[in-house]
């Protein structure tokens, strides 16, 4: 068993445990903190897979910006604990069974049917981080320049949308 594999298994356990902790925490703040831990674990997976830039974006954008936004809203809304729903009592067990079926099916399809031909083990990650970063930047700003610019417009629209949605109308009492 190589060091990589041991590292992977421990991190996979942490990732699944934090995801389940996010799911079953009664308090929304605990869920958010569990999710931050999960995002950081996934960032380490990205480094193991030879994608350092994605790992850093994951930490800054997901674990940083998005989760801070979540925590702001949780605190704004008072982080109330909702009582378990009585509306559909059979929903929880049914959801559990369906989730197990979904896991089994997606694992089967992704590992048996959708696998790239003949390549089952991951090749050595790029040793030189700067080289892989430079190659990725070249690709991003040449081949994918148009989607990149569209993304900037999307972010602008989202920003304007969020401001318009939360802005009070003139003269409105609230």
């Amino acid at each position, binding site marked *: 068993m190589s060091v990589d594999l041991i590292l992977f298994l421990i991190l996979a356990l942490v990732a699944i445990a934090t995801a389940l902790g996010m799911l079953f925490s009664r308090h929304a703040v605990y869920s958010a903190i569990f999710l931050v831990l999960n995002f950081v674990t*996934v960032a380490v997976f990205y480094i193991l897979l030879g994608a350092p830039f994605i790992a850093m974006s994951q930490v800054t954008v997901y674990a940083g910006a998005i989760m801070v*936004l979540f925590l702001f809203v949780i605190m704004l809304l008072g982080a109330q604990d909702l009582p378990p729903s009585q509306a559909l009592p059979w929903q929880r067990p049914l959801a559990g069974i369906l*989730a197990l079926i979904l896991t089994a099916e997606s694992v089967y399809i992704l590992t048996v049917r959708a696998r790239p031909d003949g390549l089952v083990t991951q090749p050595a990650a790029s040793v030189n981080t700067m080289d892989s970063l430079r190659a990725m930047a070249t690709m991003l700003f040449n081949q994918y320049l148009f989607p990149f610019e569209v993304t900037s417009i999307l972010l602008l629209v989202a920003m304007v949308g969020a401001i318009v949605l939360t802005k009070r109308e003139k003269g409105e009492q609230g």
Partner: protein
Amino acid sequence: MVPVDYYIILSAILFTIGALGVLVRRNPLIIFMSIELMLNAANLAFVAFASVIQSFSGQIFVFFVIAVAAAEVAVGLALIVEIFKTKHNINVDEMNSLKG
């Protein structure tokens, strides 16, 4: 070396936990976090497959997914705040009318 299958299996498990969260929780904030978890699982599968075929396209797609997720969270949380302001409750079971 870790076989890439392990990453794919982990990604499938994380995705399912996210889907389960959307199904069983009643707090829209937790539902949102579960959606983020699902996006993350998809990103992990993207990067894992990209590392197998030695291409940067997968990583660039993940970069775009992260940007779209940030936009989605900004608008979605603004909507939740607005719903809370009108209904003073964020239980998704209560959100059954289109008119505010």
